[in-house]
């Protein structure tokens, strides 16, 4: 559970934003292991459009921090070759909305290399992509399409929600022998700071974190939606005792933590940015009812984006779940 994320008091820490924690995670792994390299559009000399790779080019040079053309398929395809060869590439997709040119490389090649070669090759590759809405971006820059990647066997999907988790989960992802899609909630890249250990550490993949304990309703969420969910839980404190579980890894899902929480509360809501239909909330709902129907006291609320493409900025505040909408959903689950 959450213990790994709590910085130990005797450790030296630094106050970092989430995007600084990405940079710190990359840097500490590159210092530790010379096989780790970073590649992508403007990640080198420019330092990344969100500054996630700032300073890495100067520290590690052009052999390990590689600027690429705007060619997502080529970036991931090349990285797969490097990974099969024994390197540990971290490829950046500038926005998740542009990951689709690399969709085939990720699901057909990276995710299947181990199976396809009967274990002779693995693909220790990390694909980083800022995802999600709320930053007043133009079209194609705000979506959350995790559902199409979690359905792919052989691929892990990770989403941090705090700076300390970001560094630890990214470290684990880089050290993992299999491909990891590492989705970064760009809405909260600079939203707050947290003490992050200066040294290298892992937060294990596949483990959810209980962010707030409660006994009435379990709310499952991840990434940028964790903060408005916690805010909603606090606002409801007088009427509903809400437990908030930050899933952190979306595939494989931490069923044990999900079910433990649900068996305690018997009521649940799932909050995500992506459209409802075909989204990951459906899988979580199906898993809960399959494993714990006898504990279930109410339908499971799915508090999500709407079944349309992500809108332009004038409408995005209506599209994204925010605290008030999450509160309404939790109330429905509690009052059913």
């Amino acid at each position, binding site marked *: 559970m959450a213990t790994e994320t709590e910085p130990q008091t005797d450790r030296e820490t630094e106050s970092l934003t989430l995007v600084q924690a990405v940079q710190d995670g990359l840097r500490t792994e590159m210092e530790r292991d010379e096989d780790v390299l970073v590649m992508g559009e403007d990640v080198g000399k420019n330092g990344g459009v969100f500054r996630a790779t700032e300073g890495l080019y100067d520290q590690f040079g052009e052999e390990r921090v590689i600027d690429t053309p705007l060619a997502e398929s080529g970036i991931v395809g090349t990285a797969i070759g490097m990974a099969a060869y024994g390197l540990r590439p971290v490829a950046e997709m500038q926005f998740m909305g542009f990951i*689709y040119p690399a969709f085939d490389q990720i699901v057909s090649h990276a995710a299947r290399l181990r199976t396809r070669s009967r274990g002779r090759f693995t693909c220790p590759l990390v694909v980083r992509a800022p995802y999600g809405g709320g930053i007043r971006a133009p079209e194609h820059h705000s979506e959350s399409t995790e559902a199409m990647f979690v359905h792919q066997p052989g691929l892990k999907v990770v989403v941090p929600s705090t700076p300390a988790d970001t560094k630890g989960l990214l470290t684990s992802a880089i050290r993992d022998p299999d491909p990891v899609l590492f989705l970064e909630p760009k809405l909260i890249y600079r939203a707050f700071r947290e003490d992050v250990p200066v040294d290298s550490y892992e937060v294990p993949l596949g483990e959810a974190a209980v962010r707030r304990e409660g006994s009435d309703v379990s709310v499952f969420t991840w990434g940028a939606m964790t903060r408005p969910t916690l805010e909603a839980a606090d606002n409801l404190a007088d009427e509903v005792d809400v437990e908030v579980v930050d899933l952190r890894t979306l595939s494989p899902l931490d069923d044990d933590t999900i079910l433990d929480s649900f068996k305690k509360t018997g009521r649940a809501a799932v909050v995500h940015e992506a459209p409802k239909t075909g989204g990951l909330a459906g899988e979580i709902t199906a898993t809960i009812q399959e494993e714990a129907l006898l504990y279930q006291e109410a339908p499971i609320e799915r508090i999500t984006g709407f079944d349309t493409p992500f809108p332009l900025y004038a409408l995005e505040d209506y599209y994204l779940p925010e605290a008030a909408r999450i509160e309404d959903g939790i109330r429905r689950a509690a009052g059913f």
Partner: protein
Amino acid sequence: MSQQLDAETETTTQTIRESLNQALHEELERDERVLLYGEDVAEYGGLYKISEGLYEEFGEERVFDTPLAETSLGGTAVGAALAGARPVVEIMYADFLPIAGDHLINYAAKMYFNYGDETSVPMVVRSMYGTGDGHGLHHGQSPEAWFMNVPGLKVVMPSTPREYKGLLKGAIRDDDPVIFLENKMRYGESGPVPDEEYTISLCESDVKREGTDATIVAIGGMVYEALEAAERLSEQGIECEIVDPRTISPLDTGPILESVEKTNILVTAQEAPTFGGFGSEVAAQVIDDAFFYLDAPVKRVGAPFTPIPFAENLEEAYQPTADDIESAVIDAIET
């Protein structure tokens, strides 16, 4: 629109292969805006002979071969559709749809919403899925869940020859982009196909078998497995109702909910891995809207969470069948 086959309709027994060929033939003949192109669809007649004879009849301007370049198939289809054509492109194997993913997800699906006017992208992407022929991990997976969370794309997965024909014609006439998924293991299945002209509307679920004891929601090739399971269960005194959504997205949930309200038991059946798949969405919607009608947890039949294995014995073990549906129904009823 003939949704159900009534007793007076004159029919001919056809295979799915024949009914699809006839659908393409009729639409190419009816509307000169319709184009058919893809890898080996023209001179060779399609890898599975779905487009046999169409090149000879309609010529290379309307039916043509392309390089092995799925990105370009998706991209040119979006362009052709915006320019007024009704392209039908074949992507040989649904496993390769992601190569065209950007054009399908960022362009085909979003144009209507982006422009806010009458702009639409009337294109059909035909693609094959289906396990069981030893083609390994890149030539048979079921891709529907990839596109279920993409608003703006319609995903169609028919089961019978009559529906393959009617829905393909419906998809070609639809103003939105449609991913039309064909089960390559079932092209030889035969059934009655009306002699007269007909289309079937998208987005309407169909009840394939009536029953009172359990509801099976099965898609594509799994409809056949569900029918077989239902026959066996009937011999044991369990009458299953089978709902075939036919269009996966947007999903017509009405008949599913009505059926569950009657039977109180739900089993979903798909070829794709269960995790993150179609059955999970159906389960979630039923939990949302018919929670009090469920007597048991929704059982989801699907493949294990691995790529499709190549070895024959492993592929056989991997593939969901009538046996799995049968035991899921019994498990649910005994819960």
